[in-house]
């Protein structure tokens, strides 16, 4: 697969040329951040399969597609957005084709959590944002992150003050409604020390033509904070979805994440998690794809300090001629003693044409650590099928049940009941073969 660099440059140039006029902010740091990112876009190229980090993932078709930033905003009716409502959520920020839609959003001002868009956030607390926005998601060497930052106009901000604990989740909903549009969702979550919050980051579509989502999310946990992060990628089936996430955990904080990828023709999620002393994270994922879909998850869990714990279970269910990629790096730095890290990549192929590339990686530079990792790729276990048949279930029902269960093990970990049952139903529908 060869792609010339001139084509790459052309692609990026066309995107940048279509950049809407971003009015200069009165905040010098924000202008600086954007212009640094614009400079990096000028230097970087779209990765090809010659790049180690992209060797399994062919995004060359991006070069044959033409996307433009949103020109006219769609006046979406509340009912149309309502179908994506999550009943437990106390606050919801809705972005339509990347543009903030206040009339669709709902903010519970009383529960102590600040959920606002960038404009309101800057008005209230520009200083806190200056030290965080764009400081965690690395854009100097990652072209999509750089593009997102260059286009940074609005964002979803969630700020949880110290010791505030809320059980009702915050729903950040990104709805695609227009074909050929490139949107740049941006999220920033600041969890103050001792705070507890659940955030759902949700990408959906109301149309089935091609479009491009290029998202960046930064999550910062102060000491003893606890964040549940549920990421749902259910884009349209012709979409290209590329996302970068960066999570920073201060001492003794706890990050629990479940990310599911069901949609998009091509999706790529890069997640970088950095752990301080005694921090804990669970980073679980499920890609459920079929047809000609490609879903790629790249994670890097960085044990920078001692006594931290990370658990990761990533699963892929691959049907049709689809292609799933998982690359999970666990880095244990020098001095990160007593690290406890467990990683497992499990993959289920439903057809002979389904394909998976998985690459668990452990890089350990400390000597007193407990690290395990492993990967399995296969079809359903015939002993499991037999067990169910021996209880009277037909082979088709047995296979459906096991395929469903394979995915449900991840969905079960979502702590929001209505979302959990919705996604369980999606898995059930997609894994059920009629006898």
């Amino acid at each position, binding site marked *: 697969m060869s792609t010339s660099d001139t084509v790459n440059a052309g692609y990026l140039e066309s995107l940048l040329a279509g950049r809407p006029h971003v009015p200069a902010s009165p905040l010098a740091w924000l202008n600086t951040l954007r212009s640094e990112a614009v400079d990096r876009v000028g230097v970087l190229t779209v990765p090809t399969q010659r790049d180690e980090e992209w060797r399994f993932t062919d995004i060359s078709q991006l070069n044959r597609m033409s996307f433009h930033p949103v020109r006219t905003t769609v006046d979406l009716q509340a009912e149309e957005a309502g179908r994506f409502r999550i009943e437990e959520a106390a606050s919801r920020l809705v972005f339509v084709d990347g543009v903030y839609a206040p009339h669709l959003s709902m903010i519970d001002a009383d529960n102590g959590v600040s959920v606002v868009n960038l404009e309101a956030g800057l008005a209230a607390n520009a200083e806190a944002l200056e030290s965080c926005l764009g400081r965690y998601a690395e854009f100097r060497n990652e072209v999509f992150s750089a593009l997102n930052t260059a286009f940074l106009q609005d964002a979803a901000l969630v700020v949880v003050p110290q010791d505030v604990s809320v059980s009702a989740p915050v729903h950040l909903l990104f709805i695609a409604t227009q074909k050929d549009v490139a949107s740049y969702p941006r999220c920033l979550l600041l969890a103050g020390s001792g705070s507890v919050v659940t955030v759902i980051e949700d990408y959906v579509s109301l149309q089935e033509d091609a479009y491009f989502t290029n998202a960046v999310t930064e999550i910062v946990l102060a000491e003893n904070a606890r964040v549940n992060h549920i990421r749902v990628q259910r884009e349209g089936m012709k979409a290209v979805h590329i996302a970068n996430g960066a999570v920073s955990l201060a001492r003794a904080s706890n990050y629990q994440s479940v990310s599911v990828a069901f949609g998009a023709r091509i999706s790529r999620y890069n997640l970088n998690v950095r752990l301080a002393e005694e921090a804990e994270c669970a980073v679980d994922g499920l890609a459920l794809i079929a047809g000609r879909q490609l879903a790629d998850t790249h994670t890097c869990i960085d044990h920078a300090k001692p006594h931290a714990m990370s658990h990761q279970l990533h699963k892929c269910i691959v049907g049709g001629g689809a292609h799933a990629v998982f690359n999970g790096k666990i880095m244990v730095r020098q001095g990160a003693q007593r690290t406890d890290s467990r990683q497992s990549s499990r993959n289920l192929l439903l057809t002979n044409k389904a394909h998976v590339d998985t690459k668990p990686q452990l890089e350990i530079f400390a000597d007193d650590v407990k690290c395990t990792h492993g990967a399995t790729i296969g079809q359903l*276990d*015939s*002993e*499991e099928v*037999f*067990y*169910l*048949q*021996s*209880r*009277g*279930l*037909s*082979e088709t*029902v*047995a296979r459906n*049940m*096991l395929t*469903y*269960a*394979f*995915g*449900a*093990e991840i969905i*079960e970990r979502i702590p929001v009941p209505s979302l959990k049952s919705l996604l369980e139903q999606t898995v059930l529908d997609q894994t059920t073969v009629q006898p």
Partner: protein
Amino acid sequence: MIYPDSKIVLEVRGLCASVNGTEILKGLDLTVRRGEVHAIMGPNGSGKSTFSKILAGHSAYEVTGGTVMFEGQNLFDMEPEERARAGVFLAFQYPIEIPGVINSQFLRLTYNTVQTHRGKEELDPLEFDDYVREKMKLLEMSPDFLERSVNEGFSGGEKKRNEILQMAMLDPRLAILDETDSGLDIDALRIVANGVNQLAGKDNAIVMVTHYQRLLNYIVPDYVHVMEAGRIIKTGGKELALELEARGYDWVGAECKAASEAAA
């Protein structure tokens, strides 16, 4: 219990079977009638577990000769699920864990599937809940087990109890218990055996496959068979199990060999 003129549940004649080209069963004969409890004992590798899996229809084993009739039907004409619906039940030596499937949903699905094929009424979730809780008392199981994934994180004893719970629900004509005592402590063994004893009746039959005599202290067999090298080489009453416990298996083979030489 042995009943005179009881109907034959299972009739095995000259059964030969192999796995991956290796012959495991070499002409096995066995007749089981309603109401009876049989124990098949034998050293490791004698073919006991193979026999139980073949009865349930495991596809890894190739039947190369002989016949098996179940309630007058050719068992080998039936898929595993058809055997289950017709009343064959295998309690697994190593029950499978199914993370992601809630036990109560699994139990209800299997129960209703089997009921439907037997022309009986299905139970809705509420009715089923009452039904299964009643059955769980038999095995001294906490209702918590209903909300957990099937067998996931269950101890050895909990898994075996879950197997016997399924036996209780599916009401088989023929229950095959494959090494049901393995991995059980004495309390779990007592509970499991007590459950099986309450399920045994004059209309069903039980075949226990076991390496040790221990289980037979709790579930008393009408017949004890000794299996060696793919065949049943000796059949006796419950006292045979005690003799095996005391003397091991070697003497049975030697006796059998001497007898066949004498006949020749």
